[in-house]
């Protein structure tokens, strides 16, 4: 029995699992310590989880667009965070204009939709132009080459928008209708957070429907599967890829507006860290897998919110929130050790409708 088991796993696997087990043991030990110390009440834990879910929804929103492009082109679009930023940052000017006329709070829904339209227009344009200039000419090149142009484009866009709109901290106007909190099933939840969580679910479902059920979505999956074959079947590959980028840009803009509602502040550098987090979330969930990206985002958000208090506190580490990225990435390693292709497994194209 044991020998057979050992045969199935080679030494590397064993060492890997050992490392995984040590990490897991640390996590469990830390959690146990914290929980048994009774430092935080049940209510506080619930707060942690809700805050984490809200933050995770933002990651998920960005990750959806990310994973879409990623699933079709297998390309790490480092500039996705900047696509996210560009629309939101531009729509800010509409928002303060509307606010100055009083329209913003009189008709909050129309206002937000207007801001969304502007953001989508800008982000989509940027995404498409980016594809045309920086990625399309390199489609045949080794995969690392477009990665570098994406990095370059990311810097370029950051500093372009910083030059255009200035480097000060810009703050979206408050939406009075979204102030305060709702009480849902006895759980106190901030309105903005509830809206963001719901919006991310809607966006995920919509994108998935688009990709799985519509003709354009089928074309996308065909291209993801095999560009050459897709071209032979009469699919305009360039067009499909542009569509994908446009869709990714639009969803990034939607994420951006949600972000602006919940966090208010916008600036030219706001996209970089969420971009990386979204990348992490996408990988965590399984590359190219839309529900996976959603799940990855939520998981990441919750780990960041809960992890420091739950695990690090128990291990006696001071100022644990400083290390939230460390614990998030450790959890990522842990997940990938036991599930090497992400939580949900990968790839848009494998899922046959």
């Amino acid at each position, binding site marked *: 029995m044991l020998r057979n088991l050992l045969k199935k796993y080679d030494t590397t696997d064993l060492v890997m699992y050992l490392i995984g087990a040590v990490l897991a043991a640390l996590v469990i030990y830390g959690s146990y310590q914290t929980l048994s110390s009774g430092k935080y009440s049940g209510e506080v834990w619930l707060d942690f989880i809700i805050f984490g879910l809200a933050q995770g929804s933002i990651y998920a929103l960005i990750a959806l667009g990310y994973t879409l492009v990623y699933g079709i082109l297998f390309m790490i679009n480092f500039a996705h965070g900047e696509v996210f930023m560009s629309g939101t940052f531009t729509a800010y000017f509409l928002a303060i204009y509307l606010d100055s006329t009083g329209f913003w709070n009189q008709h909050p829904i129309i206002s937000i939709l207007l801001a969304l339209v502007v953001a989508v227009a800008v982000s989509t344009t940027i995404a498409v132009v980016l594809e045309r200039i920086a990625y399309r*000419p390199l489609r045949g090149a080794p995969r690392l080459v477009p*990665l570098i142009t994406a990095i370059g484009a990311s810097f370029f866009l950051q500093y372009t928008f910083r030059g255009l709109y200035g480097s000060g901290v810009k703050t979206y106007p408050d939406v009075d209708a979204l102030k305060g909190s709702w009480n849902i099933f006895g759980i106190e939840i901030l309105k903005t957070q509830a809206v963001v969580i719901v919006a991310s679910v809607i966006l995920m479902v919509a994108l998935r429907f688009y990709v799985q059920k519509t003709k354009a979505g089928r074309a996308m999956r065909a291209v993801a599967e095999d560009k050459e074959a897709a071209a032979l079947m009469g699919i305009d590959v360039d067009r499909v890829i542009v569509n994908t980028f446009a869709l990714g840009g639009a969803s990034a803009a939607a994420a951006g507006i949600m972000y602006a509602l919940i966090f208010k502040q916008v600036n030219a550098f706001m996209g970089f860290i969420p971009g990386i987090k979204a990348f992490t979330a996408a990988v965590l969930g399984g*590359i190219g897998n839309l529900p996976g990206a959603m799940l990855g985002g939520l998981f990441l958000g919750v780990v960041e919110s809960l992890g420091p208090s739950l695990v690090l506190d128990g291990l006696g580490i001071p100022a644990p929130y400083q290390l939230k990225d460390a614990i998030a990435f450790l959890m990522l390693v842990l997940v990938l050790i036991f599930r090497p292709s992400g939580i949900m497994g990968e790839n848009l194209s494998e899922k046959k409708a």
Partner: protein
Amino acid sequence: MTQEKKPTWKDAIQLGVIGGVLVLFVSLVGMVQAFDGRYIISETLTLGQLLLFLPPLIVGYISATRTDAQHRVSGILFGSVSGLVTGAILAALLLLGSAINLRAMFINASPELMDILMFGQETLAVATAVLVIGGALLSVLGAVIRLSPPLIRSAILSGVSAVIIMGIMQELLKITFGGRDWYMPIDDFLYEQKGLSWMGVVVTFLLGVAISLWRARSASRPKKTVVKTRSRERQRYVQIGSFVLGAILLLILPQFLGPYPSEILNTVGIYVIMGIGLNIVVGYAGLLDLGYVAFFAIGAYVVGVLTTTGSLATVMWSWWLALPFAVLVSLLAGVILGIPVLKMRGDYLAIVTLGFGEIIRVVALSNWLKPYIGGAQGILQVPKPQIGDFVFKDPEQIFYLVAIGIGIVAFVAFRLRDARVGRAWKALREDEDVAEAMGINLVNTKLLAFATGAAFAGLSGAIFATKLGSIFPHSFNLIVSINVLSLIIVGGIGSIPGVLVGAFMLVGLPELLREFADYRMLMYGALLVVMMLVKPEGFIPEKTHKAELTDRGDVDFDSEIEPIAPAITEI
């Protein structure tokens, strides 16, 4: 193919709009205004104006490219239309900016910018006309340059570039050689207080022309095929010879250049060492590592902890004694990172390594380890290395440390590449499964790649620590990893000379551009994109990589079939 197509009005206008977007961009991003005081030619042309003039010129040039030699007149005509559109768009900005306050949105649409766009005209109407007509004239000029015989064309372009480059370099030259007696007459001759003197313009232009003519002449000479007939041995001698030559050059370089250029070279050198190391991981073995900065940080921190004489002092070793430990600890860290990622491929590997880099940084920054490594306050008072009485203190002296480091690392990398393990790496890079089937021990091979790369980064970090004299966790962020990765790809992945060129391009150039302060990163980003578009295979591609690229033709569908593996197989 597209060149034969006859240009249409639509094309011309389209080009004009692109030019217009460019001029709007440089204006609204603030570059025109920021560089308005920066004279290229004394009292005549500022860098800011140049940025406005270049788009219509380029548009005209490209417009003319689309016609063939028979249609010169139409080429010029189309060019002028493009320029007209470009100028009109700029004029629109001027009119709009004068009429309403664009500044609520575009922070740089300031009165000063509008003032610059007026080009000294009194009334808006005249200024508008000047912009539109000026745009057209400039693109006609561009078109004329394009349509002139190749020899003259390249001569003009080379001359103009020479003038621009020398104009930009004034400050740098003065800082570098300002104290030298031999330089002052040259400076007086070439430059006024700000910008080139007219004599300087003429001389540099002629110099540019001369270079271009010389290059044309040597290119037209029949190419000798000697290279091909050379024996392997001779090739080797040539190689060694050129390296020796390079070494000598490097030795006298810092003394000749003085502190600031030496400082730049040191920074470049530190990245070269890292680049050679990452090249082994990414270029040879095909393992995409986005967290390479971790090992750099570890090397620096080990040296810091072991040598510092400040408040965190421990053993207060000399740098030389601490160095092997720095390298060793980094190497171990490489192995430790290597184990959990052994089975991961492609982008999973990328994100996990990225995470590792971040973990190291935040842990270094944390309050948790503050009593040992200083947290946010860093480690201060890291001593300089010393041999007898010779202290490696100033940039000129640190340079030798860096140069020796590069020498060692490059030598090891060369040897490894040609050794058995080098071939194993290559096999791994091409196809992991096949490599395994061929009897290559994947575990050892991968771990060796990680360990070697990490050790090099550790060495680099050790030099970095002593060069700075203090270590702060903020020096070790993701940008460093990105920078190193970019430079090896820009240089040509897998190629060691490529690392040198890449480092000069991506580290040296931005350092030289330091005076462009705010716009440095903007230029850097644009540079990355443009370089990759122009030379996707890198500046000095490695032989096999190049062969792969050309063999497969333009479109590489194969890479897309396997969703996870491509990052590995296609590097």
